[in-house]
């Protein structure tokens, strides 16, 4: 995976330098990425140190671009097929999915579902068929796009993969910043040492030697304060001495940085947005739209629910419209069954009771826990817990059962999953705040800060 040459050049062809050091074109090796006490730090210097990480991140960008190209090509071919236009034979072949009953049985067994339960069988068959079809068609579409038989432009890929690309490019800039900060410290130390007629190593040794000695009382107090009365005094002393030397060194660097602050010039890329259809209604009502892609079983999903409970009950509650997308990228039958049941109870207006009931039934599996605590697994018997719960809540059970078995319902749930994938969500929970995506667990303070920032911007 090692690339020859400066990888930051490739990476930084994407986010631009903010000081105009590479105006209107690709940066050059001599481009300035930062300034320290009148000295410049070039792209080449940072590149040398960040080469391995940036190479890997570039590899991930390329992988994301390839996957997006396959997805877009598949969507294009599916649209052509739906419009009755001619499509390649390979595409039609990929659509002929044979799903042997033994595979459905195996999936039922693995999910802890009863093979003779017709609802379970219907749901698992629908899920497996969708996954098989998706994988087979993506593979064919990737090949057709590679051979130029389906046109997908770079601009389309850039647009469609913008969340993933934003994050990977942001990581590249963050890596460049980390390396720049190390270089900046080296420059500051070198200059300070020269000013004192010394060299950096001797200067650091002198500073560290000046660190205050660690007294016995300090060792005892530290162990007691940190809740470690049984800690080995010898170890605590070594740690405190090390910390004192580090503090002396950091104090010196902080002084030098304050005297001549290093300036990092690479700009982070702009965050993408994903406006949804429901956004207009929220805008008209003067509230922020918070779309939550989550489910009832993932780790951190119950934590998320508690954050949302507090947020809705708090001062911002009245200015937020919450929209749920029961979601999991993992094609797990239990997640799928919950999401289908959710859609079917929504049709009969029982979503609030269902949501609360399923949280209760699953016993808060998504809560944080100690590392050494036994992990609660969804037991074999409750993969259909949501389906059964829904049946107890709806007034029209026949309509509910018909909804559970309906290909249209399955398609809608799977479509919402695909919608999350199109945004670039690869994990749950995930959020859109007025179209601004947030990936992974978010604390209440963070969500409220984003909501306030959105309110101020509008």
């Amino acid at each position, binding site marked *: 995976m090692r690339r020859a040459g400066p990888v930051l050049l490739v990476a930084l062809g994407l986010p631009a330098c903010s000081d105009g050091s590479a105006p209107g074109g690709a940066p050059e090796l001599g481009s300035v990425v930062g300034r320290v006490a009148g000295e410049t730090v070039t792209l080449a210097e940072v590149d040398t140190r960040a080469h391995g990480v940036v190479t*890997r991140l570039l590899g991930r960008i390329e992988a994301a671009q390839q996957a997006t190209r396959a997805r877009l090509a598949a969507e294009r071919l599916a649209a052509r097929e739906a419009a009755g236009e001619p499509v390649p034979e390979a595409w039609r072949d990929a659509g002929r999915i044979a799903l042997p009953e033994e595979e459905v049985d*195996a999936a039922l067994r*693995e999910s802890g579902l009863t093979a003779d339960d017709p609802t379970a069988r219907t749901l698992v068959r629908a899920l497996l068929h969708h996954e098989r079809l998706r994988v087979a068609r993506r593979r064919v579409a990737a090949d057709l796009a590679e051979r130029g038989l389906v046109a997908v432009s770079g601009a389309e890929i850039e647009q469609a993969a913008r*969340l993933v690309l*934003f994050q990977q490019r942001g*990581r590249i800039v963050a890596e460049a910043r980390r390396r720049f900060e190390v270089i900046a410290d080296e420059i500051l130390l070198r200059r300070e040492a020269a000013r004192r007629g010394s060299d950096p190593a001797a200067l650091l040794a002198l500073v560290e030697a000046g660190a205050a000695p660690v007294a016995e009382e300090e060792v005892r107090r530290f162990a007691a304060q940190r809740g470690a009365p049984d800690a080995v005094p010898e170890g605590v002393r070594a740690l405190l001495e090390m910390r004192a030397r580090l503090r002396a060194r950091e104090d010196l660097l902080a002084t030098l940085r304050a005297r001549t602050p290093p300036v990092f010039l690479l700009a982070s890329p702009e965050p993408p947005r994903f406006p949804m259809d429901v956004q207009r209604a929220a805008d008209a009502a003067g509230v922020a739209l918070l779309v939550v892609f989550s489910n009832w079983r993932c780790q951190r999903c119950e934590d998320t629910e508690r954050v949302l409970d507090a947020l809705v009950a708090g001062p911002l509650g009245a200015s937020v419209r919450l929209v749920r997308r029961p979601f999991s990228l993992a094609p797990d039958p239990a997640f799928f069954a919950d999401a289908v049941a959710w859609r079917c109870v929504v049709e009969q207006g029982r979503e609030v009771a269902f949501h609360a009931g399923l949280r209760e039934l699953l016993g808060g599996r998504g809560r*944080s826990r100690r590392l050494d605590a036994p*992990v609660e697994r969804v037991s074999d018997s409750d993969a259909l817990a949501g389906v059964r719960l829904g049946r107890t809540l709806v007034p029209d059970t026949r309509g509910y059962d018909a909804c559970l078995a309906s290909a249209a319902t399955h398609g809608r749930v799977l479509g919402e999953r695909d919608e999350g994938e199109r945004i670039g969500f690869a994990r749950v929970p995930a959020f859109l705040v007025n179209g601004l995506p947030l*990936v992974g667990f978010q604390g209440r303070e*963070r969500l409220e800060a984003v909501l306030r920032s959105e309110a101020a911007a509008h």
Partner: protein
Amino acid sequence: MRFRRFGLLALGISLALLGSHCGPHKPPRLNPLRLYAMGDSITTGFDSWFVGNNSAVSWVNGFHGFWESLLGIPDVNSVNQRITARFGSSGRTNVRAAQNGARWDAALSQAASVVGETPHLVTVMLGGNDVCRDSIADLPTAAEIQGHVRTTLDWLDAQLPAGATVQVIGIPDVKRLHDVARDEKGLLGIDCEAIWSTVDLGFPCGSMLDPANSEQDRLAVQAMNLLYNDVIQQEVVLKNAASTRVYFKFSDAESVQFTGDDVSSIDCFHPSAQGQELIAFYAWTDGPFGP
């Protein structure tokens, strides 16, 4: 700025170089058909994909078959898979002795079962939980780590079949994990600080992740992290020079430069499936059987 280590390692390397020229002759190295993995929650794949242990995405024991493919579980191309790809599936075993929460002081008990398993390749990746204690005051001394490593390697040397290999993976730079995970929030990513704020409720690695820690605390823990790696490396290098039966190899994990998506989105602490893939790549390419 990272704390610099001192001359301990240089001594070990010098002795090893001496040993490599003058050391005893060893029997031919066995192909690694029988794999035995010692370690902690990194090796069990804890929280790497689903919550809890994820054997399929473990960097060393991982596998990828029909069900993993069906469920979209990532293929990390583990050491186990690479062994099968290179040496075939005949005679293969894939044993996990790793336990969540294990520290170096548990290494000897994890090594006990090698007597029955007769492995050809033993991987050891321990030390993350020595760096990651509830409080920085609980960190063991380098001498304590050194003692556990020495005892464990002596036992393995005596019990493994002649020609077996022991590959010891160093401790990843836990502070880097902290830094890159913290930066994810600025990239519309996970709010790790909110997760770490549950340290008081018992989340692991308070020594590094507790928000009450100062940057000096974290730098001090990082310095201990690097120091542990120095003594582990020294012991492995010396043991390899001294052993007449077994090959011992140290692989540096500090140079595994994790990025934000290599960290678990479940707990912001363990490697994600991508992080596991990265460790597998480094371990295999640095090991005696790859690339």
